[in-house]
């Protein structure tokens, strides 16, 4: 019938671009990670060092702290986003006036550049200008200063992430909810299931793939957050919000420790994949085992 070669011809430019700008750098980063290479060190040449970079990572307190903070940030932000996103999606399933307008408003943060999101939240929280520190101080006598208090800086980055990304979760779950068949719900009602039972045994299992894909996308994004946090806190106070993406960036660019930075990038990528896999195995495989006949 139609010749395969035309099909390959159509695919060729896409494969070429993804190969040159996606695969090639990836192979490059793998190679560099086995070398000792710092272009501003006393010896700026590449020297093969085996797994030395990877061994150093395990004892790097800064790296481990950054990893731990990123994990905390990801868990807090993604959990809140899934719960909030589910509630909003469920509410959007009802009919009410001006639904289109409200949905557009709730999609808005998603469209904004992460750098601009960081700028927005900086304007909200900067002392002497932002309304948040002003009113917390005036109404509750609470000192809000994200450039000094670690916990406040952390919470502000989490809240900013929730504001920015909950719409994505809402839209994902909304799409899944609207494509669900009605029969199981009617059946559950006939069988006399209450709301909690319907949610737990009907809605949740059917929504699981959508929830999982939202969690994966968001978790991967949270592990690589740089722009917003950089604009909001610059990684501070101290290194409290220096999440892993920022940490790698600092090692690679100002410090030009190329080999070490590459090893760090690969380990972070690997940990992200493992985390998603564990989540998948824990949530999907286990429930499937327990499912009654």
């Amino acid at each position: 019938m139609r010749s395969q070669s035309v099909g390959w011809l159509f695919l060729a430019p896409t494969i070429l671009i993804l190969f040159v700008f996606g695969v090639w750098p990836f192979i490059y980063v793998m190679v560099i990670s086995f070398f000792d290479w710092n272009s501003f060190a006393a010896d700026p040449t590449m020297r093969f060092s085996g797994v030395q970079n990877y061994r150093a990572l395990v004892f790097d307190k800064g790296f481990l702290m950054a990893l731990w903070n990123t994990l905390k940030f990801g868990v807090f932000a993604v959990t809140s986003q899934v719960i909030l996103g589910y509630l909003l999606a469920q509410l959007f399933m009802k009919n009410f006036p001006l639904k289109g307008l409200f949905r557009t408003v709730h999609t808005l943060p998603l469209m904004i550049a992460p750098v601009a999101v960081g700028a927005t939240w900086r304007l909200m929280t900067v002392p002497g200008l932002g309304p948040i520190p002003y009113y917390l101080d005036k109404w509750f006598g609470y000192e809000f200063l994200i450039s000094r208090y670690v916990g406040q800086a952390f919470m502000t980055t989490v809240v900013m992430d929730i504001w920015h990304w909950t719409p994505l979760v809402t839209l994902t779950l909304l799409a899944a909810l609207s494509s669900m068949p009605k029969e199981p719900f009617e059946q559950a009602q006939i069988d006399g299931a209450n709301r909690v039972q319907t949610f737990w045994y009907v809605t949740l299992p059917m929504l699981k793939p959508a929830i999982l894909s939202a969690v994966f996308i968001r978790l991967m994004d949270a592990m690589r957050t740089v722009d917003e946090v950089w604009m909001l806190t610059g990684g501070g106070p101290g290194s409290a919000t220096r999440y892993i993406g920022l940490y790698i960036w600092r090692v690679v660019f100002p410090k030009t420790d190329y080999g070490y930075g590459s090893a760090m990038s690969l380990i972070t990528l690997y940990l992200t994949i493992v985390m998603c896999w564990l989540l998948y195995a824990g949530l999907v495989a286990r429930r499937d085992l327990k499912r009654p006949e």
Partner: protein
Amino acid sequence: MTRPRPLLSILFWTVSSLVTLFPIYWMFVVSAKSRVELFGKPNFIITTFFSENYIKTLTDPTFQKYMFNSIVVATTNAALVTTLALFATYALTRYKLTGKENIFFWTITNRMAPPAAFLLPLFLLYTQVFVVGDWKLFDTRTGLILLYCVFNLPFAIWTLRGVIDSIPSELDEAAFVDGAKTWQVIWYVILPLAKPGLAVTGILTWVFAWNEYLFAATLTSVHARTITTGLAEFVTVTGTNWGQMAATAMLTLIPAIAFLALVQKHIVAGLTFGAVKG
């Protein structure tokens, strides 16, 4: 089934919308005030519009250059990505290519990797490997346009797959029987039917390219800097000129908002990354 209570739900959505909009509104307020007006008690009402923040930004030649670069990069990238993705998706859905499922999955994985892992190799490739004589890919708009394909192409292919799958292949078969060439089938059969999907894909890829910061900041230095890097420079260079920073931020988000208003009806399908199927 609960009784519909329109007043209660409108009240809820109004409050929720105000919370969502407040940070953006506050930025607008800051952008419309002079430095003196911003001191002391936060004032949420704009009495006089202090346009100097915007005029200063818009007449600044550096800003104009950044804006121009952003427009060129985002537009070219969106056009390139949408075109390439249309052909790629057509090939992946309509031809019996060996291993096409693997190719499809492989394109998606390109979107998963953390950009921080790619910054260094790309920086080295752009400054040392992709060099022809005096010309380097570093600090060029072309460099950014090609690079943004890495995260935009997978997204576009993923979105367009659903669109092209939903066009019945009997239509192309009929056209082929009538003696049409492949390009004619794509131009006269696929293109008109896929237009809404293509529009959404094009607009969203445009917004993604427009919003990108990390690569633009690392892989450009003077000539090809984009508006997002310009905005980030405000924090480090002129840390206290909040009004002008807010004005710049407002200018970066206006196109995104305008596009959102255009495509909001189709966006639910476009932004779900195929989750609908699950």
